[in-house]
């Protein structure tokens, strides 16, 4: 455990329930200020892992450190450092949004002045000012989720655990929610998030997949695509003459050393690459500039395919 910039460090985490091993020798590190996607099928051990990371469940074996706190020895201490939001946002139905906020602020020990300042900023940023006197039952799911995010960040935690924060939320509010998550990360907060909307993995700096409690893959979205997909296809189509253009030949030569495949097609060429590379992208861009009629289309392997590839592996 010596990665200095890792704010979450779990080492050899194992949790057994009787004969059943829910989490099996899991080691993860989450860099400070990053957005970390923790993905896996239903029942793969995600929730058990999160419950251990936030000090609600003691691992059978293993070590956990979150923001410098030894979570296993001091499970209560870690709660001042973290915020947690689940799929079912816990709001008191009888209280208005504002009253919920005041209640949570009390639990976190925020005084009136601190609350006023913090809620002022949060309600503005999360577009909650207009609904602060509404009751949770009257609010659409997207607004409830934003309220949940506000509550989980009231005490300015350094680490946010978001367990399926966008489940059942519409596409517009999901996009908005991810803007807010990105803002938190830019402000230095580390975000540990689970989701079944796999396109959301692309908003994350690092993605880890678990299956049967074991780590199956861990990398940036680009690394996962390179390893677990057919890779990118970039098609260039234009006048037939273009296929013989010297520019294109130069492109071929520049790309070939990088192990990128280049195929001629009836319309032009197709580039196949495990990942996007600055050099060859720039070369394609140069071609676009000199041949404005060139049609470019990029196929990016979807994250759903990667999830399927990983889940399909024999355990």
């Amino acid at each position, binding site marked *: 455990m010596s990665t200095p910039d890792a704010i979450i460090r779990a080492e050899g985490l194992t949790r057994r329930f009787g004969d059943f091993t829910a989490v099996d020798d899991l080691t993860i590190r989450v860099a400070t200020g990053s957005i970390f996607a923790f993905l896996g099928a239903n029942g793969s051990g995600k929730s058990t892992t999160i419950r251990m990371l936030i000090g609600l469940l003691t691992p059978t074996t293993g070590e956990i450190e979150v923001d410098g706190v030894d979570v296993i020895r001091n499970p209560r201490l870690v709660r001042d450092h973290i915020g947690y939001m689940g799929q079912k946002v816990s709001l008191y139905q009888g209280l208005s949004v504002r009253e919920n906020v005041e209640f949570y602020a009390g639990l976190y020990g925020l005084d009136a002045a601190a609350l006023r300042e913090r809620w002022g900023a949060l309600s503005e940023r999360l577009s909650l000012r207009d609904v602060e006197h509404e009751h949770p039952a009257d609010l659409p799911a997207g607004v409830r989720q934003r309220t949940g995010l506000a509550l989980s960040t009231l005490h300015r935690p350094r680490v946010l655990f978001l367990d399926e924060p966008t489940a059942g939320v519409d596409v517009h509010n999901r996009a908005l929610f991810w803007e807010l998550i990105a803002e938190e990360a830019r402000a230095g907060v580390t975000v540990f998030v689970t989701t079944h909307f796999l396109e959301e993995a692309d908003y994350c700096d690092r993605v880890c997949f678990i299956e049967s409690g074991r780590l199956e893959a861990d990398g940036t979205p680009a690394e996962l695509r390179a390893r677990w997909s057919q890779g990118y296809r970039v098609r260039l189509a234009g006048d037939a003459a273009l296929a013989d253009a010297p520019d294109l030949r130069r492109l071929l030569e520049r790309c070939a050393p990088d192990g990128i495949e280049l195929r001629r097609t009836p319309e032009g060429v197709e580039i196949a690459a495990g990942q996007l590379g600055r050099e060859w992208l720039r070369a394609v*861009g140069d071609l676009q500039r000199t041949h404005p009629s060139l049609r470019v289309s990029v196929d990016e392997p979807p994250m759903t395919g990667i999830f399927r590839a990983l889940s399909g592996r024999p355990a």
Partner: protein
Amino acid sequence: MRLGETHRPVPGLRLRGLVKHFGAKVALRGIDLEVDGARILGVVGPDGAGKTTLLRCLAGLLEVEAEEALVLGHDLRGDVTALKSELGYVPQSFSLYRDLSVHENLQVTARLNGLFGDEFAARANPLLERTGLAPFVDRQAGALSGGMKQKLAIVSALLSRPRLILLDEPTAGVDVLARDEIWAILRERKHEVLVVVSTSYLEEVEDCDLLVYLDDGRAIATGSPAELRASVPLELYRAWGDEPRAAAAAARSLPYVFASRATGSHARIEVRRADTPGTERVIADLLALPERPVLVAERMAIDTESMLLSLARGDRGGNGGPPGPGTPANAAPGPGDRAAATSNRSPGAGASP
């Protein structure tokens, strides 16, 4: 509007001016919808648009007002007992008998529908095989994973061979493999049953034969996914480069750019058709942005995400909701807030005694 042709005489949905009030609150403000034949109808739209209420109306669970409200030929304004025996309904929070096994849960449903013995087995077994639940028939329903519970609820709803099945977000919180299985079942059944399903997943919206887009209790768009995509008055561009966020921000400086947003590897840029200077010009402008954040630019067909966001923005004008994603109003937080948040990083500041 009349959607699709009849595969066989399945009288589907025929709604004109369907209105649903809850006290003073109007949940549905006059829905017109005509769907014939077996197919998959997706109910989409923002949270609070009335999707769940519409499904509950179709299930005969709510009293409605309408000029016409026929479901499978039964009038929702009259006695719906017969209708209820012809449909399967899986609400968002459905109830399984947690202490009963998978098999026992299905038996309860079967008995309620007058299915016994061999006939029960003949219907249940293929569905259990198909959903991958077969190895778990003796497991308590309460011990199933979220995805398996959803599958059990759907198997249960399909057991009596309904002519209409209503599924309210059946895959919320369900992993992609279980979603694949659930959708495979729906696609197999769609020739014999009208499937009405609400969903927030983009790929599932794409898999529907027809969509009805609800907003604020109104059906503001109806058609196939392709028809709805074609109706979007936008052009969609993608800009690829090292810093998608910088590319998205820089693209906003182009006067004709309507919205711009970064995702992992690229920026998505939308231009109103009415404002576009033409594809070649847009691409040239993106490639020429100051500091060259864009290495490659492409125009792509409108996808489901852009279609839904566009429909959402279209009627989102005056309800006080937040601005659309990617608009300049979503820029970084104010300097005061940022400074305050950053100060939290100093050692010890985050921990209270």
